[in-house]
């Protein structure tokens, strides 16, 4: 035996004679059997095999090193080695189910075909099920299929109750289903719950998984989430490099690679036009009014504003700049199908606003849309110099949240910022003090515009400043 890691799933029936479960699964209740599966060994045995109750257990041994082998693009981060794979019933379990219970999953049971075609009472137990989305997602996925869900979170560490719950659930499903149906539900939905960590699912397997959803997936209320979670892209080198730096820093990768994270709150209450749309509209209007033709989008992120800019033919040259390689990848993908003639007006490049970048000099206008609040306040003077002093465009448009407005977001807890990466959020007065100072130091004039519905008490949700170079 190579390995003894354990991922466990048990399936119980009380339909008498319960031991007939052995015929349905094609595994003898009095024997413990082992099967080689991808990246490990699956063991099948029956903890209980009585007339009134029979439980089959699938214990999966996973070799974590085997998981990484041959995946050079993915390897070399520590969490590939010390990870939950050997214990958590995620995608590996799904793959093992389809291999060990292949015939059962197809609903074939020669001697007991009638029983196989019958819905029988079943109980499934998964003691460590990774769920990105918590107990609610398990319920949302299994309940519409006729399962009763009982899911409890496993604490991270009983010695450190402050740390809260782990991402694992102890899940019990009960319902009346054909065995083949139950197996196919598990086969498709376990990886969906596992989401972010299904790096071993190949494209070919995606096809197989979707075929297993035939007959029920099309009507599932969460079918979009289910299919979407299979479509993950490979990481480019830079992202792996970033993962390694996160480990060197002993932080979580997502703490560093958060350039594309969505804000905690984004929308004004009771408004039909999203705030982000109003913001982009205002920026484009200001740029057009300034007569800008060559425009920089500094901190372009995934390219939402670029998409609006490129629709305006008056912008003859558009440069999207971001420090995040991943953001630039996403932005580039956004314009993959844009006609060559249009796309030729757009350039994407990596740069950092706290460094002077000579190639950004000489443009008509620059936009810093929801960017400055992602820079540590003590580093702002470096950004000011590189934008207003070195690049020195004729017009600079800056938008940033108005923190006074935060009280109008019902879902935002008091004192929380709108985005997990915001380093500060300013009041209207703070923003003006900063902007007036910048304008004075660098020879610009500045004026202000509200974005979004201006609240008589706390002002607009977003504040916008337009700087114009003097002379």
């Amino acid at each position, binding site marked *: *035996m190579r390995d*003894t890691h*354990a991922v*466990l799933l048990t399936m119980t029936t009380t339909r008498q004679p319960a031991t007939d479960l052995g015929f349905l699964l094609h595994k003898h209740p*009095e*024997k*413990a059997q082992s099967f080689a599966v991808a990246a490990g060994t699956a*063991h099948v*045995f029956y*903890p209980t095999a009585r007339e009134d109750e029979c439980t089959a*257990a699938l*214990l999966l041994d996973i070799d974590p090193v085997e998981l990484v082998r041959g995946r050079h693009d993915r390897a*070399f981060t*520590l969490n590939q*080695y*010390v*990870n*939950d794979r*050997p*214990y958590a*019933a995620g995608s590996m379990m799904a793959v093992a189910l389809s291999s060990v219970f292949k015939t059962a999953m197809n609903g074939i049971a020669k001697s007991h075909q009638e029983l196989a075609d019958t819905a029988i009472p079943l109980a499934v137990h998964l*003691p*460590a099920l*990774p769920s990105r989305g918590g107990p609610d997602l398990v319920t949302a996925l299994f309940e519409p299929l006729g399962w009763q869900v009982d899911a409890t979170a*496993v*604490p*991270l*560490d009983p010695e450190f109750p402050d*740390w809260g719950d782990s991402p*694992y659930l102890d899940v019990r499903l009960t319902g009346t289903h054909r065995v083949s149906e139950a197996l196919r539900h598990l086969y498709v939905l376990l990886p969906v719950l596992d989401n972010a960590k299904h790096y071993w699912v190949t494209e070919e397997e995606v096809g197989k998984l979707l075929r297993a959803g035939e007959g029920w997936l099309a009507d599932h209320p969460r079918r979009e989430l289910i299919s979407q979670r299979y479509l993950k892209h490979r990481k480019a080198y*830079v992202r792996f*490099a970033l993962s*390694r*730096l996160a*480990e*060197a*820093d*002993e*932080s*979580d990768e997502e703490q*560093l690679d958060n*350039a594309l994270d969505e804000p905690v709150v984004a929308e004004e209450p009771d408004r039909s036009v999203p705030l982000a749309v109003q913001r982009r509209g205002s920026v484009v209007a200001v740029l057009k009014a300034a007569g800008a033709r060559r425009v920089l989008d500094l901190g372009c992120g995934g390219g939402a504003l670029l998409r609006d800019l490129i629709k305006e033919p008056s912008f003859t040259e558009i440069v999207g700049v971001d*420090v995040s*390689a991943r953001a630039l990848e996403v932005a580039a993908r956004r314009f993959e199908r844009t006609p060559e003639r249009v796309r030729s007006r757009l350039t994407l490049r*990596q*740069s*950092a*606003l*706290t*460094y*002077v*970048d000579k190639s950004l000099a000489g443009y008509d206008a620059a936009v810093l849309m929801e960017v400055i609040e*992602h*820079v540590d306040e*003590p580093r702002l003077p*470096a950004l000011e*110099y590189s934008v207003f*002093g*070195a690049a020195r465009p004729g017009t600079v448009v800056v938008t940033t949240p108005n923190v006074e407005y935060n009280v109008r977001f019902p879902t935002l807890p008091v004192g929380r910022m709108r985005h997990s990466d915001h380093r500060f959020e300013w009041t209207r007065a703070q923003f003006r003090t900063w902007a007036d100072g910048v304008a004075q130091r660098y*020879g610009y004039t500045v004026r202000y515009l509200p974005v979004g519905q201006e609240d008589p008490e706390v002002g607009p949700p977003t504040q916008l400043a337009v700087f114009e170079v003097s002379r």
Partner: protein
Amino acid sequence: MKLSIPDMALVVLVGASGSGKSTFAHKHFRSTQVLSSDFFRGLVSDDENDQTVSEAAFDALHYVAAKRMTAGKVTVIDATNVQRTSRGHLIALAKKHHVLPVAIVLDMPEGLCIERNAARPDRDFGAHVIRRHRNELRKSLRSLEKEGFRRVYVLRTPEEVEAAEIEIEPLLNDKRSETGPFDVIGDVHGCRAELEELLEKLGYVLDRDAEGRPVGAVHPEGRRAVFVGDLVDRGPDTPGVLRLAMGMIEAGNALCVCGNHEQKLVRALRGRNVRVSHGLAESLEQLGAEPEEFRKRVEAFCGGLIAHYVLDGGNLVVSHAGLPENYHGRASGAVRSFALYGDTTGETDEYGLPVRYPWAQDYRGRAMVLYGHTPTPVAEWINGTMCLDTGCVFGGRLTALRYPEREVVSVAAHKVWYEPTKPLLPPSELPPPAVARRDPDVLDLDDVIGRRIVETQHHGRVSVREEQAAAALEVMSRFAVDPRWLLYLPPTMSPVATSPLPDVLEHPREAFEGYRADGVQSVVCEEKHMGSRAVVLVCRDSGAARFGIDGAGAVYTRTGRSFFSPELTEQLLARVRAAADGLWDELRTDWLLLDAELMPWSAKASGLITRQYAPVGAAASAALSASLAALSSAEDRGVDVGSLLASTRSRASNAAGFRAAYRRYCWPVDGLDGVRLAPFQLLAAEGRSFATEPHSWHLAIADRLVAADPSLFVSTKRLFVDTTSEESVAAGIAWWEEMTGAGGEGMVVKPAANLVRGAKGLVQPGMKVRGREYLRIIYGPDYTEPHHIKRLRQRGLGRKRSLAGREYALGLEALDRVARNEPLWRVHECVFAVLALESEPVDPRL
């Protein structure tokens, strides 16, 4: 006939088809120096004679020529070049790269060209083509010099061609073979008395004529003076200064570059119409009193001055008004103009003087640049350049810099000899500039991105790949502390060679044996604290003067992120500062840079623990207890699950060990309560890196901090081991076994002397020997299972060691540059490279 070609020149061959250009080029130049239009036609079209692709071919040819000129290589253009427009492109290209264009014309008889072409099977030009070429050539011959060729050689017969010899001559500014030492002297402006005083202060012995006037000076140690120009005008005794300087130069005791004032004086002496202003009147009046012979000598001297010199193998450049790197050693009107007048923004200030563009703040070159021209209150380093004009004639000082010592020597002006247009004020009293100027502390993107090579003293050239730099840029710009605080990032450390013992991966014996093999007898074992690596920069008062930031310092991680909020950082630094009380005067410094471990691990790594380690423990515990229950039931029923049950039990115990391993390093922290700091090295202080101080010295300093504030600082347990004594080695092993047996993380073994060089370069600065239980966190709960450990022994350490060596060298280099007070970008370049290398794909478990 000898054809003399200036170094780096663009040599343009001119001649009709069949005139023998290619043969000539082949005979006199290396094949890589010759760019032939036929060859480029072939490159772009597979047909060397396809005239329809000429445009593309020349485009490519010009591109390659530009690359060669940028690199300063002699380049020969082998094309007919009989048309003025085609030559015009090449002359413009040469000018753009500040190299001299030279024409070599092969004006061969028509019959010979036709005959040669006919002999070539691949050429089907008619005679008319050659006739046309020759006509065009004829028309060009007279105007070649006017077009901009600095030298034109015309060869008219096959015999002349046969007899021609090419000689590459160095440029007049190329004095790389002169290695000094030098004393570079700023603008004198006729201040003879101060010049005499300065020369004597520098150790020169003056030589005087019968009338007592100084006519030369010699340094007993053979040093030589280099004048940055502007010897003349404004001051009281321009002839006296010239007499002394010319005497020194003629005797080989000095060099002088041309200043803008010499340039104008020589024009005035030659009777040209110049505006007599800026102190020229004084010179002309004083020289008028001198004999005609002296005036002729001055005219010849000033007229022959070179605009800049490249000295000491390219390490030193002297010019009057400074010089950007791409002009060093080049020759063109633009280079001379910059050297004499500098760069201006085109604006004028409130005194009507041109606003000078601060080229030195953009300077990134390797050569030291010394210059004058713009009076400044104090001579200061800006990115490896220094302006030595400290306004002597305006009542300031006359300044010299000793090279290579980098020592500033100056004497005060005896009086204000000339009233300045603009007051010479110290920077604090200057009016604020209209537009904020670039601070030399501002970093340029070009300082860090793309493929980079960093020169290190201890490990030669260290290269950083483009994609590594891209990832580091993201982390550096979004998360790191201000680069002015970021003097250093710690290098990664390799584990010890894998132990052959059956149940451990790492064991101290291999560390001791490894160092002994490297020739290191004495090593120190230091307890490995399980915390997070922390670099602490603490200032005695404020960092404003030294680092340009009014703050107490910074406490940052291996990737440059601050550990704490600004308030907590200040609090922590206040305690460090208080504990370091005696060190400030002792080390004559206002700041200290400490290498330390900050505990608990959970204070910094809580994200990692709660998102990676603890979940593994939780999943393992939940899955294994359920599995044990299921297997036990099966066994109770008589199903044979024996071996599976036994191994699952073992697994459950490993998982419990894993949880115990990380729990040891977690404890709650509230503000600074619970935070502990274990310093183990003092990296640097003002003017010094301590990389060569033995570890006993470093640990003694750490012990003083612990004694001063035992509630914050934690002592590092240590044991010195003699690698040549089996007894001492056994004691070291026992010490490690005891420590790791009690749950300790392990230890680090370092050469006791600190920085050690071996036969193969730098010896690893440390090797970690981690405890058996601790390694569960790294290799997984079950790594101790025999089949696992057998496989894990295959680990290769080569890449990790190589990486550790490179990062160590970069860290040392950063500290050395800090000690030399080098410009920020030079320090940042090394620190950034360490971060970039950290993304190198190396087995992270090592």
